[in-house]
C-alpha cells in the first residue's frame, strides 16, 4: 500500500469539526436552542461529508493509500470505515433524540441545561472517537479511548437515577482499570523496542519480528484485556450490560454501535498486527471470542429487560468481530470488519426500537410490553428485520458477515470455533425472535400490564421511526447486495494488512 505524506489539515478535520461544534453547544446551548439539536446535526453532517471527501479523493483513486501527517496522524481505509460508522449512527441518534428527549417521552424530567450537555457531549465524543481513529501512536490511542469513555459517562448516567449513576460509576471505573493494561502492553513494547518510531502504529508491523516471543505474547494478552474491556468482550464485560441498559436509547445505540467498536478498532491496530507471526494469538482470541459468543447469548436468554437482553447480545456479537479480527487473515479481517459495520446497523436499530417502545409504552420489560396494543407497525417491522439480521438469517446483512467469519474460522483450522459461532447464531435467533414475537405478535392482554401508558401505545413520531426504517433498509440492502460496501471494506482490510506486512 502506498503511504503518502501530506501536510494538509483535511484528515484532522474529521475530529476537529465535531469537537469545534460541541463547544458552542456546551456553552450557548441553554440560551439558543438552535445550538443544540440542529447545530449538532450540522456538525455530524459536515463530518460525514468530510469523510466522504477524503474517501473519494484521497484513499481510493490510484490504488489504496494511507495518509500520514508528520508521523502524528495516520489515516487509511480502516480509519475512514470507523469514521463513517460514527457519523451515520450519530446523525440518526441526533434526529431520534430530538423527539425522544421531549416532554412526551422518557426524557420528560430533563431540563434545558441537561439537553445542552447531552448534545454537546454527543458531538464531543464523536470527535474524540474520530481522533482515536487517526492517531498514529499507541499512547495517544490509549488517551483517546480513555477520553471517549470519560466524555460518554455523563450520557450513560443521564437520567440521574440510582441505577444509571451506578452504571456510570461502574463504566468509568472498570474501563479505566481495564485500559491501564493496554498501557502496560505499550510499556512492554517500549522497553524492548526502544523509542522513537517504534511505537507508531504504521511501523508496528515491521518491528514485530524483533520483539522477543514472551514479550510479544504478554503484550498481546494485555492489549486483549485492555481493549477487550472497552469492546465489552467476556470476561471483561461487567460494565456493558449496566451502561447499555441504563443509558438513554440513542446513547445505548451509540454505545453498542460505535463506542465498543473503538475497542475492536484498537485490537485491529495492535493484536491483529501480531497475529500473522504467532498462531497462539489467533487461537487465544478465538477462545475468548467463542466464550463471549456463547455466554453472552446464554445471559441474554435469561433477561426480561429488553435493553439488558440487547446488551448481552452485544457481548456475543463482539465475540464474532474479535474472533474474525484475531485471525489476521484477509478473510478473517473482512468478516470481522463486515460484522462490525453490520452490528453497528442492526444493534443500533434494535436499541432505537427499544427506545421507541419505552417512549410509547413506558416500559422495557418484555413481559409488560407483550401486553401492549399492536399498533406500532413500523417499529415491529424494524425490530423483526434487526432480530433476524442479528441472528444471521439470510437474506439479511448479518448472514453475510457471520458466514464469512464462519468460513474464515473453519479455513484457519478452528472448526470448533466455527461450530460454536453457528450455535451462538442459532441461539441469538431464538432469543431475539422470541422477544420480538412476545412483544409484537402475541395477543394483547391489557389486564396483565399495570402500566397505564402501555394501553395507549401508538407509533412513535416520524423523526424517530425514519432513522429506524433507514437502518432496517440497510440491513436488507447490504444482505441482498453486499458488493455495495465491498470497496470500503476492502480498503479497510488492506489498511490493516499493510501494517501487518510492513517492512
Amino acid at each position, binding site marked *: 500500500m502506498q503511504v503518502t505524506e501530506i501536510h494538509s489539515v483535511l484528515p484532522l478535520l474529521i475530529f476537529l469539526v465535531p469537537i469545534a461544534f460541541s463547544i458552542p453547544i456546551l456553552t450557548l446551548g441553554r440560551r439558543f436552542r438552535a445550538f443544540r439539536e440542529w447545530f449538532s446535526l450540522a456538525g455530524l453532517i459536515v463530518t460525514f461529508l468530510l469523510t466522504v471527501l477524503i474517501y473519494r479523493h484521497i484513499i481510493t483513486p490510484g490504488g489504496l493509500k494511507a495518509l500520514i501527517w508528520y508521523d502524528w496522524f495516520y489515516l487509511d481505509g480502516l480509519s475512514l470505515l470507523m469514521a463513517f460508522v460514527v457519523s451515520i449512527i450519530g446523525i440518526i441518534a441526533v434526529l431520534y433524540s430530538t423527539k425522544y428527549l421531549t416532554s412526551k417521552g422518557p426524557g420528560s424530567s430533563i431540563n434545558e441545561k441537561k439537553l445542552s450537555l447531552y448534545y454537546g457531549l454527543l458531538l464531543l465524543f464523536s470527535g474524540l472517537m474520530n481522533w482515536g481513529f487517526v492517531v498514529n*501512536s499507541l*499512547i*495517544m490511542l*490509549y*488517551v483517546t479511548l*480513555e*477520553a471517549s469513555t*470519560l466524555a460518554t*459517562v*455523563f450520557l450513560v*448516567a443521564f437520567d*440521574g437515577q*440510582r*441505577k444509571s*449513576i*451506578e*452504571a*456510570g*460509576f*461502574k463504566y*468509568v*471505573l472498570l474501563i*479505566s*482499570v481495564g485500559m*491501564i493494561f493496554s*498501557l*502496560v502492553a505499550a*510499556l*512492554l513494547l*517500549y*522497553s*524492548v*523496542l*526502544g*523509542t*522513537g518510531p517504534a511505537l507508531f502504529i504504521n511501523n508496528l508491523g515491521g518491528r514485530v519480528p524483533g520483539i*522477543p516471543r*514472551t*514479550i510479544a505474547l504478554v503484550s498481546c494478552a494485555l492489549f486483549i484485556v485492555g481493549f477487550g474491556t472497552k469492546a465489552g468482550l467476556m470476561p471483561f464485560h461487567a460494565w456493558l*450490560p*449496566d451502561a447499555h*441498559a*441504563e443509558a438513554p436509547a440513542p446513547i445505548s445505540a451509540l454505545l453498542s454501535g460505535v463506542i465498543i467498536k473503538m475497542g475492536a478498532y484498537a485490537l485491529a491496530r495492535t493484536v491483529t498486527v501480531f497475529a500473522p507471526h504467532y498462531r497462539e494469538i489467533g487461537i487465544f482470541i478465538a477462545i475468548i471470542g467463542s466464550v463471549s459468543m456463547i455466554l453472552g447469548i446464554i*445471559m441474554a436468554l435469561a433477561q426480561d429487560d429488553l435493553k439488558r437482553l440487547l446488551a448481552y447480545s452485544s457481548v456475543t456479537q463482539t465475540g464474532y468481530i474479535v474472533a474474525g479480527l484475531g485471525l489476521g487473515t484477509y478473510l478473517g479481517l473482512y468478516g470481522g470488519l463486515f460484522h462490525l459495520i453490520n452490528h453497528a446497523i442492526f444493534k443500533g436499530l434494535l436499541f432505537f426500537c427499544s427506545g421507541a417502545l419505552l417512549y410509547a409504552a413506558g416500559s422495557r420489560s418484555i413481559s409488560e410490553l407483550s401486553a401492549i396494543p399492536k399498533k406500532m407497525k413500523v417499529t415491529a417491522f424494524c425490530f423483526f428485520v434487526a432480530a433476524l439480521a442479528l441472528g444471521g438469517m439470510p437474506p439479511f446483512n448479518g448472514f453475510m458477515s457471520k458466514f464469512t467469519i464462519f468460513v474464515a474460522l473453519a479455513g484457519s483450522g478452528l472448526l470448533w470455533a466455527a461450530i460454536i459461532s453457528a450455535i451462538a447464531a442459532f441461539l441469538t435467533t431464538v432469543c431475539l425472535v422470541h422477544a420480538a414475537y412476545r412483544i409484537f405478535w402475541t395477543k394483547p392482554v391489557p389486564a396483565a400490564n399495570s402500566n397505564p401508558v402501555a394501553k395507549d401505545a401508538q407509533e412513535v413520531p416520524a423523526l424517530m421511526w425514519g432513522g429506524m426504517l433507514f437502518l432496517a433498509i440497510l440491513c436488507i440492502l447490504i444482505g441482498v447486495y453486499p458488493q455495495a460496501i465491498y470497496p470500503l471494506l476492502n480498503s479497510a482490510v488492506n489498511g490493516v494488512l499493510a501494517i501487518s506486512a510492513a517492512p
Partner: protein
Amino acid sequence: MEINWIPGLFTAEVVLAIFAAELRNLRWATAALALQSLFLVVIICTFGYLSGISNFYWWASITFISRVLLIPWLLWKYMRKVPVSEVRPRIGLIPSVILMAFILPAAYQYFRTYLCSYYLEFLPRAYAAIGETAAMNLALGLMILVLGVYVLLAKRDIIKLMMGLVLMENGLQWAFVSAAPTVHEAAEIGLACDLVIASWILLYFSKAVYEICGTRDSPFISELKW
C-alpha cells in the same frame, strides 16, 4: 553524579504506596498518596537529570500538577462531606500486610528477572550507565501497579477503589521512567489529563452514589446485578 540515595528514594516511594493502600483514615491515605506522587516527581526529575533528556522535566511538571496537587485536592474536598474512615475492607490489616509481604516481593522478583533482562538487552548504549537503576524503576513501577490491582480487589470503599486506580497509574508512570526517554510531552499531558478527569468523574459519581445509597460500600450499592 553519586546516585546512592536513589535506593532510599525508591524505598520511600514503595512504603508510601503501601501506606496509601492500607491506612484506614482516608485523609491520611490521601496524604500518603500525595507524598508518593511527589516522590514520583522527584524520581522523574532525577532520571531527567541522569539521562539528560529535557522532556522529563515537562513530564515531572505535569505529574506534579495533576497527581500531587489536583487529585489529592479533589479527594480532600470530597472528604469534607463524608466520613473519613474507610469502609471495612475484605481483608483485614494484618492479613493484608502479610499478603502484601508475599505478593509484592514476588511481583518485583518476577519483573526484575524476566522483563528487566530483556530491557537491559535492548537498552540503547547511551543509557548503559543508568541501565541497572532504570531496570529497577521498571520492576518497582510494575510492582506498584500490582499493588493497585490488589487494592481494587481487596477494598470495598469506593474512595479506596479510586485510590487503587491512581496507584496503578502512578506505578505505570514510574515504570515509564525507564522505558520512555523520548516520549513526546503530548502523550504525558494526555495521560495526566485523563487521570485527573477520570478521578474527578469517579469522585462525582462516588458523591452521587453516597447521597443516593448512604454508603460507600461497593458490594452494598450494587443494585444492578448480572
